[in-house]
């Protein structure tokens, strides 16, 4: 009994003693940060890094309110979020830690293997409704989208739909896994997922951003040499006044060892 009490108290003190660095934000970056934080802790047992998700917006508003040291984001910080930080008298540091490509996927039975950006825009805004309009068989197109809360949803809207709205009543699924599952079992389906999630149950589409002159398949080479168009950077944001505190971890993730974790998790490294 005595032992347990002493153990509990000492554990409690230990918890109070460690000043944990907090990372909060995008669910896309979450697996990467988690993996990196675990390895970082192994190398530096004295420091603790706690990682939580919730979405890019959640992370940045936590940074503004001071409840996190690093905000992880799958989109660039918005102008008014930046203004809020400036108003609070702080300045912001932005670091790109990795890249992620979005792949457009269809059911493996689909004959269509390439699409232009304009065609994708038509499909996701509801102007193109049948696969025969883009060179496929006579089959209704069923577009799947992510939920509005996801950074992926916003990025696809910005990059592919040029800020137009998705067609009203588009099917939206809560997770990437659900999108792959639905597309693998629905013949006319089309959707978009992060490059890291691709598997053999779905077929990847080659994309053209120059009105059909060249079609590019998303793979590591094409993403790195920037020929594949739907690529987004993944960011860490922190306040410059916290630089010393977060430096260790940020340097770690940019180091060759940290970048190895990036490619293990399925994202594309900086170099």
């Amino acid at each position: 009994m005595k032992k347990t009490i002493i153990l509990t108290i000492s554990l409690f003190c230990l918890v109070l003693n460690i000043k944990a660095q907090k990372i909060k934000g995008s669910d896309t970056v979450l697996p990467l940060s988690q993996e990196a934080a675990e390895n970082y802790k192994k190398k530096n047992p004295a420091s603790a890094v706690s990682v939580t998700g919730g979405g890019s917006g959640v992370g940045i508003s936590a940074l503004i309110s001071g409840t996190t040291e690093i905000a992880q984001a799958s989109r660039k910080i918005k102008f008014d979020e930046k203004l809020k930080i400036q108003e609070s008298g702080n300045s912001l540091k932005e670091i790109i830690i990795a890249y992620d490509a979005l792949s457009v996927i269809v059911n493996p039975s689909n004959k269509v293997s390439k699409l232009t950006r304009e065609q994708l825009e038509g499909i996701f805004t509801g102007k193109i409704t049948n696969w025969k309009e883009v060179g496929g068989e006579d089959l209704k197109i069923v577009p799947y989208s992510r939920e509005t809360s996801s950074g992926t949803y916003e990025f696809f809207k910005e990059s592919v739909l040029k800020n137009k709205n998705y067609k009203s009543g588009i099917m939206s699924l809560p997770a990437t896994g659900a999108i792959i599952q639905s597309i693998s079992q629905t013949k006319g389906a089309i959707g978009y997922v992060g490059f890291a999630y691709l598997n053999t149950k779905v077929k990847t589409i080659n994309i053209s951003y120059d009105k059909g002159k060249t079609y590019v398949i998303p793979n590591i080479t094409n993403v790195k040499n920037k020929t594949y168009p739907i690529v987004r950077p993944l960011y860490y944001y922190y306040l410059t006044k916290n630089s010393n505190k977060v430096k260790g971890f940020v340097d770690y993730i940019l180091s060759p060892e940290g970048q190895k974790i990036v490619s293990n998790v399925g994202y594309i490294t900086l170099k």
Partner: protein
Amino acid sequence: MRFPMKIVERLLEGVFKMSSSITSIVILLIIIFLFKEGFGLFRSPVVENGYGLYINSKNPIADINPTQIKQIFDGEIDNWKTIGGNEESIYLFRFDEIFSIYTDEELGENYQFLPQKLNNIIAENSNIIAFFPKKYMQEISSNTKEIATKNIEITDFVLGKEWLPTTTPSPLFGIVPLVLGTLLVSFLAILIALPLGLGVAIYLSEIASNRVRGIIRPAIELLAGIPSVVYGFFGLVIIVPIVQKVGNISAGETAFTGSLILAIMALPTIISISEDAIRNTPLALRESSYALGATQWQTIYKIVIPYASSGISAAIILGIGRAIGETMAVLMVTGNGAVIPHSIFESVRTIPATIAAELGEAPIGGTHYQALFLLGCVLFLFTLILSIVSELISKKQTSKTA
């Protein structure tokens, strides 16, 4: 020894009293909080907070409604004539574009030249509609005109047919598709679950032997203990492809799929409550029926079911209540397309699924956040009405027994 016992009793009584009053106060506070946050929506402007829409002062347009704003920024309306202006194509200008026209140096270190540049752009283009933060338009020059924007109205919310909560410049919060989706899925679920559940309840209480009952009853109770996300996963992987194949439709995520899952989930509620009601039929009534020469089946449908009818109605209503509030399973199998359903083989989006899917990223205190709370209020009203009705029905039952 008697005296201290009394003190203990008193103490216990006090503790119970306190815990019950704390519980009621907490519930009341939750409801007040819900409504307070939700009704904030009607104090928010139609255009995103802190932003304004600006046009050239030569443009005769003075007022644009939210749906028109959405259509303009989607490129569906591309001429001012469509909304009553001059014959002139619309030039869309989003705030971010300023950074591709001018460099950061031209805009100044703290963006001090930004307002002037914005004014220039608007002055040069008579067909412009520009969307940017109000703080850069504090002194509106003679060339620029702000489009007057109203606050979001109750009718926009209650009668709106489009739910596009993250659209800029003006999000649309119309709950009609969500309410219809929720009701459709729930009532369809009850339509499927009721005959099944009632059959099982009659079988268990009237026909089954004690041994069979001892196996089936716990199995049904087990059904109630399965987490809803497991139901959802089962639905997505097993039921969705089946519905797709059997119904020969383009996508298996439909209202019908959702209601199948909900029907399975509502079964335990319906079975146990209606079984209790059926069991409560007095023995004297059954025996009189048999004495008059009625068969078992005649007794069941002429005596037992009419007697238990109010209990069965309560079971139905509680089942609907379960279905209306269900979140995770529905989120995974109905496809979540926010569109007014025309058939049961179309994707629908329910209120709980909307709240669960969107609350994570809605900025705290913003219009989207408030709209989601208001959805919570609507859901609360639904279940409140259902509880009141079921309460009334069971009261009727008690008065009949007395």
